[in-house]
């Protein structure tokens, strides 16, 4: 399958998963928000976050087994840790990530989310430009 087609199909499935969560539970599928609140909120009304995350982790392993990705050269652990710290910090301070502001926020036609998406795309482009240089 051409990678553009696989990307578009994958995107449609991500959209459908978000729709399922919206129609079934009335919730927005923002991964950073779900992960953050799963650790904070307790009680039966909060358990759905854990089963969603379980599905995400289990599904990732299951489907990557069927659709294997090329191996990556190892990268410095410190770089990965710093990136994780920035992603976690930024997603909570900015109230969302690629799914919450991107997939759902744009779908809700929220101007706030559009501004967030344009901002993180810009700094991500800039970061890749500065860290890899023109290859």
């Amino acid at each position: 399958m051409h990678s553009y087609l696989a990307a578009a199909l994958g995107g449609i499935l991500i959209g459908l998963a978000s729709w399922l969560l919206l129609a079934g539970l009335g919730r927005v599928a923002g991964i950073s928000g779900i992960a953050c609140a799963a650790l904070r909120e307790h009680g039966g009304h909060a358990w759905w976050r854990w089963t969603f995350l379980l599905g995400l982790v289990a599904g990732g392993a299951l489907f990557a087994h069927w659709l294997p990705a090329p191996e990556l050269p190892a990268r410095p652990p410190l770089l990965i840790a710093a990136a994780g710290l920035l992603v976690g910090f930024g997603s909570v301070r900015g109230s969302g990530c690629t799914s919450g502001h991107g997939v759902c926020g744009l779908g809700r036609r929220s101007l706030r989310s559009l501004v967030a998406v344009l901002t993180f795309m810009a700094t991500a482009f800039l970061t890749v430009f500065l860290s890899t240089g023109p290859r």
Partner: protein
Amino acid sequence: MKPDSYYQHLLPRPTTPARLLGGLVLAFLAGLLFALGLVLSGMTQPAKVIGFLNLAGMLQGEFPGRWDPSLAFVMGGAVLVTLLAFRLTPPNARHPHRRPWLGSHFELPAQDRIDAPLLQGAAIFGVGWGLAGYCPGPALASLLLGSPEAWIFVPAMLAGMWLARHLQR
């Protein structure tokens, strides 16, 4: 006295064990489907994400050069569906009393201000995303793939979330 049936929809919907269990199963299935989308689209491959973020690669060779535009199709496909979803599913002026199948009510973000934390947070998020090529969903979906990277990234991400919450107070 029984409540007037006309107002029935305004009462909070009681949480029955069946509805709670149904909600947990539905959320699990949504997580599975989300993961399938991430894996199929290439979002769980950091090299592909960085290839998309490498705009300068466009200048190398014939268009699109070394730039990999495929991830734009992921966002395009996903947003196409959520535009429909958010138009058709939540309550609106004509149907103000809609409720989700298994939840008690729709809980959508109410905040619409474009403020400093939003811009700072998004800017910082983008730097982290560009550095490693992982955002939260793909990082979590990669936990059981045998690569140590997700096991470094995810705890660091949770620490970053914790830090941001504590600075807000």
